[in-house]
């Protein structure tokens, strides 16, 4: 039981996928302009990550391993992720057309989100079982969402402040992200996972 809790703490805080492992920076910078879009994106990514993590684990354990095709894992995982993302896109389009329009190109770009592929591959490296894979994927998504929402809220405030002209937009955003990453470094050593 504690192991599962530790996995969650590790993926959300200590080894946060965005600020510590520097994966998934594209949607992190691209969708964090407004808080509402950031929340929508984080929900979509959570859905994709958890589902993709599970499906990749299943595909690896019950298809690739028995047939001794482990070298195909990268392409298989990409296939799985692409399908899940397509599916998610359809669901979003149906349930919230505005969110669909607002997320725009970033929704299908979740496919190329290295955090998603990263979670799938890391599950293999760490020899996680099924439950651990699920938690790992969910924890990664929760960490991504946490940071995305925090960052979006900050960017909204920064946008209306007196930022020097040279720094406006992405520059001050990246500097802020760097400072956030420094802050998250404070969690190092909390969990040895």
């Amino acid at each position, binding site marked *: 039981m504690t192991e599962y809790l530790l996995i969650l703490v590790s993926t959300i805080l200590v080894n946060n996928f965005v600020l510590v492992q520097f994966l998934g920076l594209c949607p992190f910078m691209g969708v964090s302009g407004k808080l509402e879009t950031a929340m929508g994106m984080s929900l979509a990514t959570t859905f994709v990550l958890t589902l993709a993590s599970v499906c990749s684990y299943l595909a690896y354990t019950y298809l690739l391993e028995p047939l001794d095709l482990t070298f195909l894992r990268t392409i298989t995982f990409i296939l799985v992720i692409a399908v899940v993302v397509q*599916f998610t896109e359809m669901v979003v389009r149906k349930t919230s057309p505005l969110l669909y329009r607002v997320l725009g190109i970033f929704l299908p770009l979740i496919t190329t989100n290295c955090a998603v592929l990263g979670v799938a591959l890391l599950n293999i490296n760490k020899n996680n079982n099924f439950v651990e894979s699920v938690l790992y994927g969910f924890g990664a998504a929760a960490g991504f969402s946490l940071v995305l929402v925090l960052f979006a809220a900050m960017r909204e405030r920064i946008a209306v402040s007196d930022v020097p002209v040279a720094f406006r937009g992405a520059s001050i955003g990246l500097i802020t992200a760097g400072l956030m990453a420094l802050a998250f470094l404070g969690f190092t050593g909390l969990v040895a996972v």
Partner: protein
Amino acid sequence: MWTSFLIAVVVLLALALVFGGLLGFAAERFKVEGNPLVDQIDSLLPQTQCGQCGFPGCRPYAEAIANGEAINKCPPGGESTIKALADLLDIEPQPLDAEHGAEQAKRVAVIREDECIGCTKCIQACPVDAILGSAKHMHTVIESECTGCDLCVEPCPVDCIDMVTIQPDIRSWSWSPPEPDIIATDRQGART
């Protein structure tokens, strides 16, 4: 060696087929009809139905925007509409496209009644039926309903319609924003 290669290819193909089938089914299941986004966009447009954007009315332009048209084509809406549309669609606001007209102060049409011949051409042109009158009778513009689109000026055969700028009134007055940032160092001429 060839067998494993073959197996690998077959497995991948099988996976691809299975997933393709799943997606196809999902596409049918989650089919989306219509576009509610258009209503939201339409509610932000000023409804003058003037056609300056190049579309025959505000709703067609709203539909075009939902399909990716630029949002800076509406002069009666001006900067505030562009900003509102940019907020809604989460895209960058752009300056008003000059080829569609420039933003002007609110105007209303006024008919010089002495010259009106009662031809009803302007009544047919007004998109919001803001002109009162009938054939061979005096026409007049209902000021509170006029949107200032100036579609009535062209059809008038005796050219008796003027577009008059609405003068500010003590009741329509509002505070102006404080003077922009002038910090102490500006006063000393330190700003580059």
